[in-house]
């Protein structure tokens, strides 16, 4: 190593130390943990090395439930929330007079605390000894039977979770899409008007391609965010998510580390590694798809 490059590395040292200690080492360590069988926190010892941890969690019905929940959540909320956000942003940008008012209204959920919102959703959906909850009261108008959304059937709980997730991620997406729409140069629309372009064609051939980088950004971060969902489920269904059949992968990892059944860092690590590869795969697929349809 010559003098010059030594100096360069010296300057990089502080940043490198941080990255290695706080990013790289934990990542590698999780990977290592996930292969150490029967790891014991107290004695820091393990009985062997192999794939037992993976095999265990893949046979654990709670984990499989969590994977299923997470996938349902991702596949429903990401497309729906992005579509809704796009529709709302389009409506906002075509109503300039009320834009700032509605923008504020739509942004409120974003600055509201997750747990506080969870409480509100409980009031809306939960059945107690005293009341059936607001939604059930409304369902009764249509002569529909009341459903316990919080402690009831699986589909009802999943509906509430998806509804909640969409509602909480919508403001951010609306905000980003409104500014993306506003940044499209007005003369493109004038040119399209002179050429007699229909509204649908303007949207599909001009607006959508112009904001496609933003849309693909939202889809990718949306997928990643939804895969890492946990606090939303806790806010709605409490901490015992396994019992409620509403656990997510991140929730499962947390339970394995600290929950009632806690103290299994090896299982948690194996689950974390699996989650990592799931997210990686999906993101790569996303990137490949968006590269085809995104104009930068």
């Amino acid at each position, binding site marked *: 190593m010559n003098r010059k490059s030594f100096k360069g590395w010296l300057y990089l040292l502080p940043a490198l130390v941080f990255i290695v200690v706080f990013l790289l080492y934990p990542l590698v360590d999780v990977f290592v943990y996930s292969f150490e069988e029967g790891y014991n926190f107290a004695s820091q010892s393990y009985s062997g090395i192999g794939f037992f941890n993976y095999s265990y969690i893949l046979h654990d019905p709670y984990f499989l439930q969590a994977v299923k929940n997470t996938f349902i959540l991702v596949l429903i909320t990401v497309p729906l929330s992005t579509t809704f956000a796009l529709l709302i942003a389009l409506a906002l940008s075509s109503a300039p007079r009320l834009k700032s008012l509605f923008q504020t209204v739509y942004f409120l959920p974003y600055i509201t605390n997750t747990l506080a919102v969870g409480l509100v959703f409980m009031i809306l959906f939960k059945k107690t000894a005293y009341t059936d909850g607001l939604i059930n009261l409304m369902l009764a108008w249509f002569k529909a039977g009341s459903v316990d959304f919080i402690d009831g059937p699986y589909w009802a709980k999943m509906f509430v979770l998806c509804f909640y997730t969409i509602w909480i991620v919508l403001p951010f997406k609306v905000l980003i899409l409104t500014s993306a729409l506003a940044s499209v140069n007005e*003369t493109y629309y*004038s*040119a399209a*008007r002179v050429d007699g372009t229909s509204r649908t064609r303007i949207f599909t*051939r001009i607006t959508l391609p112009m904001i496609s980088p933003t849309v693909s950004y939202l889809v990718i971060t949306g997928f990643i965010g939804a895969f890492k969902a946990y606090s939303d489920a806790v806010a709605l269904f409490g901490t015992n998510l396994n019992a409620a059949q509403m656990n997510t992968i991140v929730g499962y990892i947390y339970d394995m580390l600290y929950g009632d059944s806690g103290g299994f860092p090896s299982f948690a690590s194996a689950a974390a590694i699996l989650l990592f590869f799931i997210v990686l795969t999906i993101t790569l697929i996303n990137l490949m798809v968006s590269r085809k349809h995104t104009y930068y």
Partner: protein
Amino acid sequence: MKVVLQNLTKTFPGRLRGEAPTTPANHLNFTIPDGKLVGLLGPSGCGKSTTLNLISGLLKPDSGRIFFGEDDVTDLPAERRGIGLVFQNYALYPHLTVLQNILFPLENLKGKDKMSKEAMLRRTDEVARLVQIETLMARRPAQLSGGQQQRVAIARALVKMPKILLLDEPLSNLDARLRLQTREELRRIQTETGITTIFVTHDQDEAMSISDEIILMKTGVIQQIGAPQTVYDDPENLFVAKFLGTPPINVFDGEVKDGGVYLGDDRILEAPELKCGRIIVGIRPEGFVPDENGCLRCTLERIEVMGRDRSVLCRNGACANRIRAIVPATKDVKMAGDTVRFSLMPDKVLLFDAQTEERIRV
């Protein structure tokens, strides 16, 4: 197709509270003959772009009518007026290729106007050849130079065979050399298609060099309409005289007394019919002739050599700014001390009323 504007008026409310409304088109009346290339000229903010947008239909006038030929198009939306519009920034769709961009207007056609794919391609081929971009059809706009983008924009505007072609500042995004080339190009395309063309510009050079006719505007009011040379030689008012010509006209504060026009103590013109009092005198730079016995005395500052001719820069008490006179390089400038004397070409000396700034013709 001829274009007629009758009493066309458009007012915008002030954007900020308390700001006065602006009237970028104030009772415009003019007729553009069929098949002519017309330049809408004026300083920025004079309403020329608004006028163009009114003709295109992107803006609705508050009052007045617009006719294309004999048809009243005032209430027609832009897409039904049969115009082609080229935007200042070209507005080419960046995600589409050149071919797709030019096809775009054709693909919008519906009902009985709908064209087959082959017919569309034949048409795009034709316009591409006209503006000479046949080899660029597969590229994206970002891969084109400014001049090429401009041609694509013109091709896209022409592909629907509009009756009228409108161009908003077509050359302002090009560099100086390209601008010269492109304006020739514009003239050629217009001549070949014979389509009535209106273009907006703030550059008098541009307007004068290629237009059949120029329309000079200021704060929403038409100042003068006519062939470029006529407007230059015979301006209606001081604004027109100042706006046209590079270098600009030299403006003096003169005085009429004893049947003549005086600049300071120099009697430069016999004008027995003029009333005594103050008068504005404009002298074109090419109107100065160095002459030992000339009537106008100036203090010489320096001489700039420009090859073909020379710029004589000097001062005179009657003129607030430095005077610039253009004299042929072959002509000797004789001076006594630092005083230089000029005689003046009569048709290059223009007189204006000191109050109204309207032209006084002698």
